[in-house]
């Protein structure tokens, strides 16, 4: 849908900050999350997980466990059919088949009358493992002679296809021009290698679901997920059910950030319930979340950029190696596509290697892949700016991508807001504020694609003139408020007169997952279209009531009115007036929209970060942080700011604290919030935000998704600030105190 009015629009409600409709439920404890649902006769489901990083499963003996009183069902690989095609890896991740591929890989599950019995039963299951050599490091896994995870994995994207299997799943390459020619034109070239550890999305709500499959084969699933339609389709395939026989209801969701876009325990709960003939609830422990859900990649990133003394970049080149856990599919493709996406470059190339290792299968994490490559690219740009003696903001302004730029991943940009965010950073008081001793300032920009996708909504006009809006995208961060705003804006009624619900999978057509910063964009677009569809019908009913042609009726401020003097003289009819008599004018009135939403505008952000280092301990504190991002149009600015702040702080955690630590035994050493330390309130300053609005030509209100871009710049923004304060270039994250001390010590000795 194109922008309604490219010259500028004024809104009655959009852009205001009303209370969210689910607010009271969430401050009183009434909201029902994944683990909050129960059912009569419910059993408790628990999973047995591999204690080995890599092991062949010779035999699983469940006899003793099954004989334990109170145990109602046990499932293993034998209860899941072999799946080929797209879902093969998902199926094998949900329940190990011939091999356990990582510490925490599910090998069996029990349903029992209570938790204590289920735990006891797990201990009675005997698994005969043949322990195999393992590899958890991305570079090690790529070496010849590394333990091979999959004997049928042959590197794609290289010619000729290798004859020997390896852990390298795929090579990707993006770019244009001639980088060698570009580097020859450069006055200064910097190349560096960067490394980042894997992090977890860290949603506070562990995965939880309640499954119930009847003897008639019909199933119900209550689950915290970012996409209940996808869960339905995947579970139905894995269990051999008709899609129509499985109804999935999305609970309130306690954070996802991409980590709840796939299935882990859901097919297992359904399989247990089917076998036991009773409802089964599975709730992951935090340890299970760390060991066996989907963290993001650890990676190494090599970046080389050449620049002229006048600040113009002549070439950019990068090689990215991301591990995606035990199965192919790391986000290295998106890392490579986005690496140089902020810049208008003649010569650019990014090569990505997708690598498997003995770690949990990665899942999406907010702008998957992009923060990792941006860390390298934005760090090198910072260093180049220093080398040519130019302000890093000026270097970015000189090279910023703009309308008409051929992006580093192919498409030519339309109207984009990158330059606006950099210019806003330049004039922000933060950028001019003085710094004290041991303090440093970093700047970095970031890009994310944004996504549209399949969307279906239903907007029903109630008898009293209020509106029931059913959407199919779980509300992760307040999107129901935005939907109410957009529906009310279109219909000309009050915000409180619209109630938005997230409908179950049997009540609405298919909806893609709440991911890719797509919900406010796509579901918003569908809501606007459905409201316009309803308005058309409302005008038709008014025309019928007045006995005039529907074309002679217009909709204004929530009322049907005759379009002009020729249409006749009738007092305006409100939405409620028309709704009240709908039974007499043709029955229920509803607006619908089914769309594969296109035109998601790409998104850019620029961040400013100040840090202070304690030179004795290396402890680093972020003392000031500003996020400047293009929202196209902020529907509910408070929740747009919230996305900016939350993404920035996740990035700060990644930069300074967070990391998956594997021992030499291939086991995760820090599967808990005490040792995997996400930022807490006392670590942080206020996170300042600036909402830039450069309308997206592909949306009626001009909005762009805002959920993900905010995590792209922080790794580099923090690293650039630390590098400035420590007077040494930091190339490995997390920048823990020992690493910072070591780097400072080495720099002093030099």
């Amino acid at each position, binding site marked *: 849908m194109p922008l309604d009015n490219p010259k500028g629009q004024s809104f009655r409600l959009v852009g205001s900050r009303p209370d969210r409709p689910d607010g009271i439920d969430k401050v009183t*404890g009434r909201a029902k999350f994944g683990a909050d649902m129960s059912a009569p006769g419910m059993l408790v489901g628990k999973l047995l997980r591999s204690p080995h990083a890599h092991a062949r499963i010779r035999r699983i003996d469940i006899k003793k466990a099954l004989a334990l009183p109170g145990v109602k069902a046990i499932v293993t690989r034998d209860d899941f059919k072999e799946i080929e095609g797209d879902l093969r890896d998902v199926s094998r991740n949900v329940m190990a088949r011939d091999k356990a591929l990582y510490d925490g890989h599910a090998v069996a599950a029990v349903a029992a009358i209570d938790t204590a019995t289920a735990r006891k039963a797990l201990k009675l299951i005997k698994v005969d493992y043949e322990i195999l050599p393992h590899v958890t490091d991305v570079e090690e896994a790529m070496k010849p002679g590394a333990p091979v995870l999959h004997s049928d994995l042959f590197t794609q994207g290289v010619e000729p296809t290798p004859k020997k299997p390896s852990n390298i799943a795929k090579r990707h390459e993006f770019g244009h021009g001639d980088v060698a020619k570009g580097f020859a034109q450069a006055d200064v070239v910097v190349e560096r290698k960067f490394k980042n550890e894997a992090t977890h999305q860290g949603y*506070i709500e562990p995965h939880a679901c309640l499954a119930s499959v009847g003897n008639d084969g019909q199933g119900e699933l209550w689950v915290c997920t970012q996409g209940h339609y996808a869960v339905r389709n995947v579970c139905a395939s894995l269990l051999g059910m008709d899609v129509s026989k499985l109804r999935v209801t999305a609970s309130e969701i306690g954070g996802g950030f991409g980590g709840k876009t796939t299935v882990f325990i859901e097919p297992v709960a359904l399989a247990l319930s089917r076998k036991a003939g009773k409802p089964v609830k599975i709730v992951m422990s*935090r340890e299970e979340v760390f060991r066996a859900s989907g963290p993001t990649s650890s990676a190494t990133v090599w970046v080389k950029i050449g620049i002229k003394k006048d600040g113009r970049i002549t070439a950019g080149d990068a090689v990215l190696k991301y591990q995606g856990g035990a199965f192919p599919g790391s986000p290295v493709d998106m890392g490579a596509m986005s690496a140089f996406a902020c810049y208008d470059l003649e010569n650019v190339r990014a090569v990505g290697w997708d690598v498997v290792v003995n770690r949990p299968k990665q899942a999406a994490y907010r702008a998957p892949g992009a923060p990792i490559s941006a860390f390298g690219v934005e760090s090198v740009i910072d260093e180049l700016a220093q080398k040519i003696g130019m302000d890093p903001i000026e270097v970015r302004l000189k090279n910023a991508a703009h309308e008409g730029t051929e992006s580093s991943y192919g498409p030519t940009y339309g109207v984009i807001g990158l330059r606006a965010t950099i210019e806003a950073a330049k004039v922000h008081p933060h950028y001019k504020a003085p710094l004290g001793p041991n303090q440093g300032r970093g700047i970095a920009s970031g890009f994310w694609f944004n996504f549209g996708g399949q969307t279906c909504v239903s907007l029903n006009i109630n008898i009293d003139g209020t509106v029931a809006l059913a959407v199919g995208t779980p509300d992760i961060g307040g999107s129901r408020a935005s939907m109410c705003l957009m529906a009310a804006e279109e219909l000309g009624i009050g915000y409180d007169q619209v109630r938005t619900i997230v409908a179950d999978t049997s009540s609405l057509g298919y909806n893609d997952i709440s991911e890719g910063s797509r919900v406010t964009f796509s579901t918003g677009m569908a809501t606007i279209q459905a409201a316009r569809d309803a308005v058309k019908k409302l005008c038709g009913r008014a025309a019928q009531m007045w006995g005039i042609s529907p074309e002679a009726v217009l909709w204004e401020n929530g009322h049907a009115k005759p379009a002009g003097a020729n249409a006749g003289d009738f007092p305006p009819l409100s939405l409620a007036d028309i709704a009240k008599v709908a039974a007499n004018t043709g029955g229920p009135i509803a607006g619908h929209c089914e769309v594969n939403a296109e035109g998601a505008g790409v998104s850019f952000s620029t961040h400013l970060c100040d840090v202070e280092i304690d030179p004795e301990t290396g402890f680093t504190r972020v003392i000031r942080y500003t996020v400047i991002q293009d929202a196209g149009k902020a529907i509910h600015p408070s929740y747009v700011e*919230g996305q900016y702040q939350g993404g920035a702080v996740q990035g700060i955690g990644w930069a300074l604290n967070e990391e998956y630590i594997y021992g030499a035994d291939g086991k995760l050493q820090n599967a808990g919030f*005490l040792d995997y330390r996400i930022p807490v309130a006392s670590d*942080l300053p206020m996170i300042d935000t600036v909402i830039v609005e450069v309308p997206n030509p592909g949306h009626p209100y001009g909005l762009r998704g805002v959920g993900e871009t905010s995590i792209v710049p922080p790794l580099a923004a923090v690293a650039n600030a630390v590098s400035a304060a420590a007077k040494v270039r930091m190339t490995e994250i997390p920048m823990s105190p020992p690493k910072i001390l070591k780097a400072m010590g080495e720099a002093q000795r030099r």
Partner: protein
Amino acid sequence: MSKVRVSTTINGDPVEYLCAAEETLLDVLRDRLGLTGSKEGCGTGDCGACSVTLDGRLVCSCLVLGAEAEGREVRTVEGIAKGDQLHPLQRKFIEHAALQCGICTPGFLVASKALLERNPNPTEHEIRFWLAGNLCRCTGYDKIVRAVVSAAAEMRESR
């Protein structure tokens, strides 16, 4: 396996229950009493989503045994509002958009209320350190801190 009989007070009401000796107060609240407002984010006392007060003291209910509530007074998120009247903290959390997903919100409210009962006029620094035991992954804490500051100001004015 014999169970422990417990008489306690929850949100002002007398409550009796039977629980296993090893059962946590959080499990009792959620699974036996239907008070699912307190959340389990970690089960190890690191995230604060299960925060309740025990005789006025802020605790992680996942680290307290159900049996330990005997003769004590437990307060949970369900007891913060008085009937249909929200507590100022609850109103301010909504008004300031201090929650996105809302899973940590019950714990933050219980912890913030305990803070304001001790210190009606906390500084930003004091709020941040008091709430350091409550993890939020969505907001970056900015709007939470602002909501607590704002609620504290309103509560001081109305005293």
